[in-house]
C-alpha cells in the first residue's frame, strides 16, 4: 500500500515535537476527519532554521508531515511557500490516491504556519493571497467497511 519511503517517514518521523517559543505555529485539519497537523517554525532572517511537527492522523499524515518539515528546513520562507502537495507526495515515492489529501494537508500546514508568522509580523506574501487557514477542505466520499 505505502512505499518504503512513506513507511520510513512514518516509523522514523523527522522533526517530531514542539519548539518552545516558536516564531510561528500553524495547525490544519480537523479531528472529525481524523487528521490534525500542527507545525512549529523557528525563523531567522527569512530562513526556516528549525521546524517541528505534531500530527494526529494516519500513516501518510505522519509521513507527509515529516517529509514536509524535512523539505522546508533551511529554506527561505519564499521557497517554503512554493512547496506543493505533489512535491511532498513525490518525495515520498508517491501516495495511494485515497491518501493524496494528506499531502494537501501537509502543504496547508506549512502555509498556515507562515501565515501565522506573516500575521504576527505584519508581512505580506503574495503566495498566501487567498489562503485561509481555517478553511475546511472537501470531504471525500465515504462509506467503507469492516470485514
Amino acid at each position: 500500500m505505502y512505499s518504503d519511503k512513506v513507511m520510513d517517514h512514518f516509523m522514523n518521523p523527522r522533526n517530531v515535537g514542539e519548539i518552545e517559543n516558536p516564531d510561528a505555529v500553524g495547525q490544519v485539519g480537523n479531528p472529525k476527519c481524523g487528521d490534525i497537523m500542527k507545525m512549529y517554525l523557528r525563523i531567522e532572517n527569512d530562513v526556516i532554521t528549525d521546524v517541528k511537527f505534531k500530527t494526529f492522523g494516519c500513516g501518510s499524515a505522519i509521513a507527509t508531515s515529516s517529509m514536509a518539515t524535512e523539505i522546508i528546513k533551511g529554506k527561505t520562507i519564499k521557497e517554503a511557500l512554493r512547496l506543493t502537495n505533489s512535491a511532498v507526495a513525490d518525495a515520498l515515492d508517491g501516495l495511494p490516491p485515497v491518501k493524496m489529501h494528506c499531502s494537501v494537508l501537509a502543504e496547508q500546514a506549512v502555509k498556515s504556519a507562515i501565515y501565522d508568522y506573516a500575521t504576527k509580523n505584519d508581512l505580506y506574501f503574495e503566495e498566501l493571497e487567498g489562503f485561509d487557514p481555517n478553511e475546511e477542505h472537501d470531504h471525500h466520499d465515504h462509506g467503507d467497511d469492516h470485514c
Partner: protein
Amino acid sequence: MKVYLDYAATTPVKKEVLEEMLPYFNQHYGNPSSIHSFGRESKKVIDLARDRIAKTLAAKSDEIFFTGGGSEADNWAIKGVAYALKSKGNHIITSKIEHHAVLHTCQQLEKEGFEITYLDVDHHGLINLEDLRRAIRNNTILITIMYANNEIGTVQPIKAIADIAKENSILLHTDAVQAYGSFKINPEILGIDLLSISAHKIYGPKGVGALYIKKGTKIHPLLHGGAQEKRRRAGTENLPGIVGFGKAAEIAYNNIEEHTEKLINYRDQLINKLMGKIPYTRLNGHPTKRLPGNVNISFEFIEGESLLLSLDMVGIAGSSGSACTSGSLDPSHVLMGIGLSHEIAHGSLRLSLGDLTTQEEIDYVIQHLPPIVERLRQMSPLYEKVKGEAKSV
C-alpha cells in the same frame, strides 16, 4: 513474531477442512447437476455438507441454501423477502450498526420505494426493544437485526426481537455471520425465519456462505438461472467450498464450549490488561454481551491507521474503525452509532481472537501495544493539550 488477531475479518482454513476439500478440485470434480457418476458423487457430498450445517442449526437440510458468501446471503434475504412481500407492505426495520451488506441493501431498497427504519443503538450497541415495537407499522414486512456485531462484538437480544416479530407476524432475518460458530443457534426455537452465515469466518473457505430459510418462508431468488439449490439460487455449486464449509461447521460445533471459553479468557485478559496499562481508553461494545473473540478499544488522541501500521511493524495484525483504513474520512458507522465522537472513533482498535490464538500471542500484544500507543500519542497535538492540562493541575 506474527500475531494474527483479525479473525473477525477472516480466518485461515483449518488443516482438516482443507484436506477434506482437496479431492473435490480435481478428483471428484463432477458438476452436481450431471447424472453420470462424477456428478452423482458431487451431489452426494453437497447434500452431506448441507446436512452438517443443518445439524449445527438444528434445522432441516432443505432449509439450508448455499450462496457465494455472507454478503450474498444478506442481499438475498432482504431483497428476496422485500420483493416477495411487496404487495403486503414496503416497510423494513433494521439497525444503524448492521454490516454494510445489510445497510447498503436496505439503502438500495429505499431508492426503489421501500421505507426503512434504522433503529438507534445505545452506547453498548444494543437496540432498544421498545423502539423496535414502536417502529412496527401495519406495512412492516421484515425485521433484519444482526445477531452479533462484527466491529464491537455486541450480541443483540435476538430471542426478544424474534418474539416481537412473531407477535406482529413479521418475518425476522438475522445476519449471524459473526455469531455462527461462537453461539449455539437454533433458529426454529428462537423464532428466526432467515439467517445468514459465511464459511470464511469459521475456518472454512472464502466465497461460500449460506442462507437458512425457514420452511414456508416466501422469498424470491436473487440469482436467476439454473435449477441449483432447489431453483432458488442459480449457479454451478462451489463444490470444494461447500465441502469445506460443511466440515468447518462440524468442527466449530463439535467443541464449541471449549473454544468459546478459551476465547473469553483471552479476550478478557486483553481488555483488562490493556485498559489497566493504558490511560484514556474506552471499551467499545457491551462488557459481557459480546462475541467471545472480540476486543474493541478506543485510544484517545491517536488515529487507528497509524496504530495498525505500527502494530503491523511488530507483526500484530488487527483492524480499526478508523475511516483512514479505507481512505474515507468518516469513521465507522458502528462506532458513530454507539455515540463516539469522531476523534475517539478514529482511534479505535479491534483485535479479534480465534482458535489458533495462544497465550504467548496475548502476552506479546500486552507487551507491545502500550509503548506504541504512547509513541503515537507523543506525536499527537491532541495529547499535548491533555498533558498540558494535567501539568497545570
